[in-house]
């Protein structure tokens, strides 16, 4: 049996990876709240956040903070471009939501291949935001970067909560997801709201990638795994609820850790997804209520 500090260290490990899943899941929720679309290019935004920061910082020589801001700005523009070139055209042709979701998956593959072609196939990383050894307490080590991930994720959840509940802009976004026709009759410019949703989710995806990259690496192919785990986090938490997505991600990460510690690392996803299936049978709407219901 393990001692308390080892068990706590396992828990920190599960929380760490769970925060990463949750951070990606928040991006899904934000777009869903303005358009009702699941954007599978979200993983591409995450990858590009880290990759562009690496390019600006390591290759161009821009200071890290500026490199991050430039990466977020560029990925936001890409989000807008996807909305403008792909999603808006499909909407004008009355394409179903399923078609638009498939189109976002195609965009993900395009982003992946473009990165492979124009950058390379190698892993890259960026420095920890705060250099130095991990914090130690009760014999448990906590990396400083994970504190950044947790802190910024919670701040984002708080700010998004304010956006959706306290501002006219946020309420208008949610109205567009609930019923775009009624929203249009009420004078809301639906296309602008959807575009804003894409910009915001792309920026959040990029920010997620920037936060995550120091704890591992970025490479052209990491987008889809992040897209899948973030999507699961968003579904568990109640699609459209940023706090739910974050908590869903943590739940997934902790369950995987339990699988590794008490059964076997090879079965961690079996354990995690068995529990999650059970949970979804009991609460098919997810842990929390979606903000667009």
């Amino acid at each position, binding site marked *: 049996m*393990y001692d308390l500090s*080892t068990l706590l*260290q*396992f828990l*920190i*490990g*599960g929380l*760490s*990876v769970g925060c*990463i*899943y949750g951070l990606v899941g928040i991006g899904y929720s934000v777009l869903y709240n303005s358009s009702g679309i699941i954007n599978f290019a979200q993983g591409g935004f995450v990858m590009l956040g880290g990759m562009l920061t690496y390019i600006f910082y390591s290759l161009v020589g821009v200071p890290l903070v500026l490199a991050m801001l430039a990466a977020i700005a560029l990925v936001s523009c890409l989000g807008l471009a996807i909305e403008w070139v792909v999603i808006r055209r499909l909407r004008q042709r009355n394409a179903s939501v399923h078609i638009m979701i498939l189109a976002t998956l195609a965009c993900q593959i395009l982003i*992946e*291949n473009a990165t*492979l072609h124009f950058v390379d*196939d*190698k*892993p*890259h*990383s960026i420095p920890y935001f705060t250099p130095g*050894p*991990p914090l*130690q307490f009760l014999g448990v*080590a*906590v*990396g400083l*970067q*994970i504190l950044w991930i947790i802190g910024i994720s919670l701040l984002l959840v708080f700010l998004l909560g304010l956006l959706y509940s306290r501002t006219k802009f946020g309420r208008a976004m949610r109205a567009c997801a609930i019923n775009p026709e009624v929203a249009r009759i009420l004078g809301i410019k639906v296309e602008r709201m959807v575009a804003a949703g894409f910009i915001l989710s792309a920026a959040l995806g990029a920010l997620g990638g920037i936060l*995550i990259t*120091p*704890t*591992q*690496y970025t*490479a*052209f*192919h*990491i987008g889809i*795994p*992040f897209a899948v*785990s973030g999507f699961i986090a968003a579904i568990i938490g109640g699609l459209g609820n940023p706090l739910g997505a974050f908590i869903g991600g943590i739940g997934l*990460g902790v369950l*995987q*850790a339990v699988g*590794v*510690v008490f059964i*076997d*690392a*090879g079965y961690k996803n079996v354990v995690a997804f068995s529990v999650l299936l059970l949970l979804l049978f009991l609460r098919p709407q997810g842990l929390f209520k979606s903000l667009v219901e």
Partner: protein
Amino acid sequence: MSLTTATTRLAAGMAVAAFISASANAQDKYVIGSSAAYSGYAATLDRAWVDGAKLAIKKFNEQGGFLGKKIEIVVEDNRSEPQEAVSGYRKMLSSDGAQVFVSGCLSAGNFAAAPVIVRQKIPMLVCSILPKEENLVAWMYSLLPRPAHEVDTRLRYLQERTQIREIGILYDQSPYAGLQAKLAQENASRFGLKVVGAEQFQQTDADLSVSIKKLHAAGARAILKMGTGPSGVTAAKNLKELALGIPMLTSTEDMSVLIEIAKVLGKDMLFVAGQTQVVSSIADTDPIKQVIADFVTPWRAEYGERDPFWAGRGYDAMMILAEAIHKANSLEGEKVRDALNTLPAFQGTSGLYNFSVDHNGVTANPYVLAQILDGKVVIVK
């Protein structure tokens, strides 16, 4: 024109086109098929493998090709997924008329496709391990040194150079890594070591800290990572964040990944190095040095500082194939296979291949253990 007539004509037209295409293949060119990962975790290695093979093909085509026929390589991206590899192999067999396969490191994909390819009597030179079935191995040739070489290189170092006696294994889901993990568990006692745990992970895992901590809690004082790909960077960062202060000994790896790991772990990262990665330390009298120079010079001209290690194996595969075709004086699969089985020992960039002895061609351990210190590769003496 009735639908039946149109369909009949279309089918006849396709049959004629296929016949013409096959005839053209038979007359004008020698088609090499390659199942390789251009995406997914194995992409870095397989892209290098293919580029190494292409470099050799370019050289041979400049010299008139094989037996006067232009060499053409068709690459199907298996995306590091076995099922994609099977589809790609089917396409290369049925549409491209591949006459030999020079395929990458996706063991599971090569295993899955092998029965169909062997039935067609087509030799396969691969950068993966070989399956267990004798009828398949009869047509397959591995350019990869035995997995035990990678494992034993690390175990020997721990035995002879450290006080560490308890080790933990991290291995990915590939058959190659699984085999290495199994061998480490079997061989550890020969080196006076004990494996306290073996944890499997997926190449796409975002965090390995729980598995690493579990191994450490079980008593591991060194981590042996089995399998290739950027997951080594994640493992290295997790090790650092856990502040365990124990070394990680990786499998053979592309230098781009090793450099990232070394940035994190420094001297606590040791890796199994191929000869092309430590060429400056090889004596001028060693015959492999000239072989490496013959390959690396055009490689550097084409690809700069990109690691030639995995590419060297693809290059070796083509050089060996050329020897076999020259010996057989034929491009027919069966005759090429027979020639491969009787080739004398061949000095490649990655070792001495002897397929007449074993279809795992490299029989002597070609590896050394190395570190990256101050940006330079240093052999651990």
